[in-house]
C-alpha cells in the first residue's frame, strides 16, 4: 500500500508539460490523406438517392466509401456478448439520427475532402422522428426500428429485478412516497475530438492510431466490420485527450481503415467540434419513476421503479448500462421487497453511450433525491433516514448478493462530518456490523436468510 496517500509523479507528467505527449493528431506519416463524412441532415428518413460519382471526380480525391464497401456493415458494439447487431457503419436505405454517417471521402486535404462531400448527391424522404421516450408505449408513435422502439431483454422487453414480496410491502406501508427524476443528456466534450489515423502496411496489416478508451472493444469492432482477424490489425493507443466514456464507442477507426484500404494510403479522420457535439454519442437521458412503501418511523419496506433509458438510434452499450442501472436501484440501502423495471428505448436521437459511472449516476441522482423526499414527507432527519436503511454486513443486495463489507454507514457519517452536521449519538456510533436489536426490524429478518444459512459469512 505504498502508493495510497503518497504523492507520486504522474508517469506522463513531464511529457505533458513539455508538449511532447503524442496524441493521434500529432502522429506524422508521409502521404497521408484526410477524411470527411457526409452525414444525415435529418432525424429520420428513407434514403431515396445516393450518388457519389461527382465526388470521385473532384481532383485530389482518392477514395469514397459507402455501405457497399463495408464487408460486414451491421455490427453491434456488444455483439460479442450476444447483444443483437443493429447498427450500420454507414447508412444503407435509411437514416435514424441527425449526423449519422452515410458516405466518407479521403482526399489530399481536409478542404478537398469537404468539397467532395458537398458534391455527393443525396435525397431523403423524411419520416416523422420519435424523440420523446416517455411516449414509447403510446399507440401509433413512429417506429425507430422495424421491430419497434423497445430493446428486448429475452424473454422480457425490460430488465427486471424482483426480490421479496412487493405487494405485501405496499399493503403494510404507512405512506407511499413517489417521485420522478429525469437526468438530462450530457456531451462528454473531450478537448481532443474523435480522431483516427490508419496506415496500411505492405503486408496488408493495418496500423491504427486510435484515441479509444477501450482498445480491445475497438479492435473487435473494427475486425468484425472488416471481416479480418485481430492479428491483421495493430492498434496504437494509450494517449487520449479526454474521453469520459465517449471514446468507448468505436467512432472513427473503422471508416478510416476502409478509406485507407481503398486509397492504399494512410488516412486520418479528425472530427470537428461541431461533429463532436452533434454526431458523437452522449450520456443518455433517463426517466426514473420511484414509488416507495415506507413506515412512519422511516423504514423502507418496498420499492417499485420504472426506468426509461434513451438509447438513441442504436443499442451500442445501452442494454448493459440499463442492466447495471437496474441492479443498483436500491442505492446504498437495504430494501427487502423490490420490483424494478428498466426499459431501453430506441429514439431518433444520436446513439447514447457510457459516461463516468455509466448507468449508475442516474440511480444516485434519483435515489438520493428520493431519500431526501421521503425524509421530508415523513418529517425525519434525512441523515438518520439514510443511516437507518444503509446496507450492513450480511444484508442482501437487490441481486441477492450477500454484502460482506458495505461502506454506506461510514460514508454517510463522513459526509455528515464534512457537512458539519451533528448526528444523534446512536447514529454517530453506528457501524456496518450485522443488524440486530433496533436495527433489525421484523421486515428485514428474512433478507438475512442467505447470510445466516451460510453461518454468518
Amino acid at each position: 500500500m505504498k502508493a495510497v496517500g503518497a504523492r507520486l509523479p504522474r508517469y506522463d507528467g513531464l511529457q505533458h508539460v513539455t508538449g511532447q505527449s503524442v496524441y493521434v493528431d500529432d502522429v506524422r506519416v508521409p502521404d497521408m490523406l484526410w477524411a470527411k463524412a457526409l452525414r444525415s441532415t435529418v432525424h429520420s428518413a428513407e434514403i431515396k438517392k445516393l450518388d457519389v460519382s461527382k465526388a470521385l471526380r473532384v481532383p485530389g480525391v482518392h477514395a469514397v466509401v459507402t455501405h457497399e464497401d463495408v464487408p460486414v456493415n451491421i455490427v453491434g458494439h456488444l455483439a460479442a456478448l450476444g447483444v443483437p447487431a443493429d447498427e450500420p457503419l454507414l447508412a444503407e436505405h435509411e437514416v435514424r439520427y441527425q449526423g449519422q454517417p452515410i458516405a466518407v471521402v479521403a482526399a489530399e486535404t481536409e478542404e478537398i475532402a469537404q468539397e467532395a462531400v458537398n458534391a455527393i448527391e443525396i435525397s431523403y424522404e423524411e419520416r416523422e422522428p420519435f424523440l420523446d421516450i416517455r411516449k414509447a408505449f403510446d399507440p401509433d408513435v413512429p417506429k425507430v426500428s422495424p421491430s419497434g422502439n423497445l430493446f428486448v431483454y429475452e424473454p422480457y422487453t425490460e430488465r427486471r429485478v424482483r426480490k421479496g414480496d412487493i405487494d405485501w410491502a405496499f399493503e403494510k406501508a404507512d405512506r407511499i412516497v413517489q417521485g420522478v427524476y429525469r437526468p438530462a443528456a450530457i456531451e462528454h466534450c473531450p478537448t481532443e475530438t474523435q480522431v483516427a489515423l490508419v496506415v496500411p502496411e505492405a503486408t496488408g496489416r493495418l496500423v491504427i492510431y486510435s484515441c479509444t478508451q477501450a482498445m480491445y472493444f475497438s479492435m473487435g469492432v473494427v475486425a468484425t466490420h472488416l471481416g479480418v482477424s485481430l492479428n491483421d490489425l495493430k492498434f496504437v493507443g494509450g494517449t487520449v485527450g479526454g474521453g469520459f466514456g465517449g471514446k468507448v464507442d468505436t467512432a472513427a477507426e473503422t471508416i478510416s481503415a476502409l478509406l485507407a484500404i481503398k486509397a492504399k494510403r494512410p488516412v486520418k479522420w479528425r472530427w470537428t467540434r461541431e461533429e463532436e457535439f452533434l454526431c458523437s454519442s452522449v450520456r443518455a437521458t433517463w426517466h426514473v419513476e420511484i414509488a416507495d412503501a415506507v413506515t412512519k418511523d422511516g423504514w423502507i419496506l418496498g420499492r417499485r421503479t420504472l426506468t426509461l433509458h434513451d438509447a438513441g438510434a442504436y443499442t451500442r452499450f445501452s442494454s448493459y448500462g440499463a442492466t447495471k442501472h437496474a441492479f443498483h436501484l436500491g442505492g446504498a440501502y437495504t430494501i427487502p421487497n423490490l420490483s424494478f423495471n428498466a426499459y431501453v428505448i430506441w429514439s431518433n436521437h444520436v446513439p447514447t453511450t457510457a459516461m463516468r459511472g455509466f448507468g449508475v449516476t442516474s440511480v444516485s441522482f434519483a435515489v438520493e433525491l428520493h431519500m431526501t423526499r421521503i425524509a421530508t414527507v415523513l418529517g425525519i432527519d434525512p441523515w438518520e433516514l439514510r443511516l437507518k436503511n444503509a446496507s450492513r454486513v450480511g444484508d442482501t443486495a437487490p441481486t441477492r448478493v450477500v454484502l460482506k463489507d458495505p461502506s454506506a454507514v461510514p460514508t454517510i457519517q463522513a459526509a455528515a462530518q464534512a457537512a458539519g452536521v451533528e448526528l444523534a449519538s446512536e447514529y454517530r456510533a453506528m457501524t456496518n456490523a450485522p443488524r440486530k436489536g433496533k436495527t433489525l426490524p421484523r421486515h428485514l429478518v428474512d433478507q438475512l436468510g442467505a447470510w445466516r444459512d451460510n453461518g454468518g459469512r
Partner: protein
Amino acid sequence: MSLIINGAEYELASPPLTSLLNVLREEVGLLSPKAGCQQGGCGTCTVLIDGEPRRACLTPLGAIEGAAITTVEGLGDPRNLSPVQAAFHEHYAAQCGFCTPGMMMAATGLLARRPDATRDDVLEALAGHFCRCTGYVKIVDAVLSAAAGRVDTTRPEPEAEPGEPSVVIPGSPA
C-alpha cells in the same frame, strides 16, 4: 512570410490566410498547440504572439508578419522546466494533457505581464480555456504557485514519499 518562432527565424511557404495553428503544426512541425475546436472556443491552440496569449487557430499568418511566437517547446525541456511548467507538473495540473499547452501559454503570458498575479487575475487569464478532466482547481493552484515563486524548477519530480491519506473514512480498512 517570416516569423521568429521560439527564438529562431523561419521563412514560411504557407499562404497568408493559413491559420497560425496550421503553420505551426503542419509546416513547422511544432505539435504542442492543439486543434481542439479550430473556432477560438477552447483555448488549446494558445501561443504567445509578441508576448501576448493569442488563439493560433484564429490568427492568419498574413496578419502577423515578422512577429515573435512562443510555444511550449520554447518554454523549457524536461531537464530545464520553466516555472509554469514545473508548477503544472508539481500540482498535477495536467491530467489528459490536451488543454495543458494552451493553459501554460496563457499562464506564462499572464505572469510575464503581472508577476504578482492574484487569483482573480489567474481566473481572468484562464477564462475560455477548457479543461474537462481536472475541474480547474489544480490548474489555478499551479499558476498561483508559479506566480509566488514557490516552484523549484531544479527538482521537477514530486517526491514519492508514502504517507497517510488525508481523508480517512471511518471504518475503512485503508
